[in-house]
């Protein structure tokens, strides 16, 4: 079982307490009415789906129930970093080096 560090509980917790909530750092457009169909599709459906490091939202649903962000490698399943919602992204190049 993976152990995931929850930034709110400040410790590593078993993965079955967590739920993935998709890609992180997707800003909702402020002018939703003015969006073209194509722009809406891009915001709403299209995700980066990278092979490798991926910024994701996770929720500690069976713990503190808070959403937080994580940087995870989609190939190895390794969590490089987890951080609270609203905090800046960790630098992907710097984090990637120590793998």
């Amino acid at each position, binding site marked *: 079982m993976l152990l995931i560090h929850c930034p*709110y509980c400040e410790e590593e917790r*078993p993965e079955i*307490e967590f739920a993935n909530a998709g890609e992180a750092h997707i800003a909702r457009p402020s002018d939703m009415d003015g969006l073209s169909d194509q722009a809406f599709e891009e915001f709403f459906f299209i995700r980066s789906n990278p092979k490798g490091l991926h910024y994701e939202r996770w929720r500690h649903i069976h*713990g503190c*129930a808070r959403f937080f962000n994580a940087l995870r490698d989609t190939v190895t399943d390794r969590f490089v970093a987890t951080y609270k919602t609203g905090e800046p992204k960790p630098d992907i190049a710097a984090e990637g080096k120590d793998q």
Partner: protein
Amino acid sequence: MADQLQRAHPLSGRLVSNAGVTVEPAPEAPRMILRAGKSALPALSKALGVKLPTKPKKSANGNGRIAIWLGPDEWLVIDLQSGDPAADCAAVKVLHSAVDVSHRNTAIIVSGTHSAAVINGGCPLDLSLDAFPAGAATRTVFGKAEIILLRETEDRFRIECWRSFSDYVFGFLEAAAVDTDG
């Protein structure tokens, strides 16, 4: 005249008593889920008579009540003396949400020297005394059910679960407690 309906305890009469572990239903108790911001805490703590903990995995006792930290703005308050914590919070003017969950939850007491091992039968948390000392409490999972686990003393745990899950949780504990002797 019709007889008055009586609310039945979902686990009434259930008991597991093996070498080194006892599993029994806890008495009914009023409970409340409290949500509030940091600035509201002093007033709410004063009204409840128990200081709401602000650190993860902590619980606090006072005024016959247990307050358990669930999240950065969320607490479970259990009243062991049949008070009404939600009514106490209603008298406070600061912004908060207090929801009475007394009838949603029920609790199971697991006690004895093997209690941590029995709970680890269905719960993946590290329950060693270093990681989860007396007074520690958290929401977690037990088998397929969500529970709130409180270590009252070294050898005594309180498991809060939803009433509808209590038969499952108790049955799981019963099965986990079969081979504790020795």
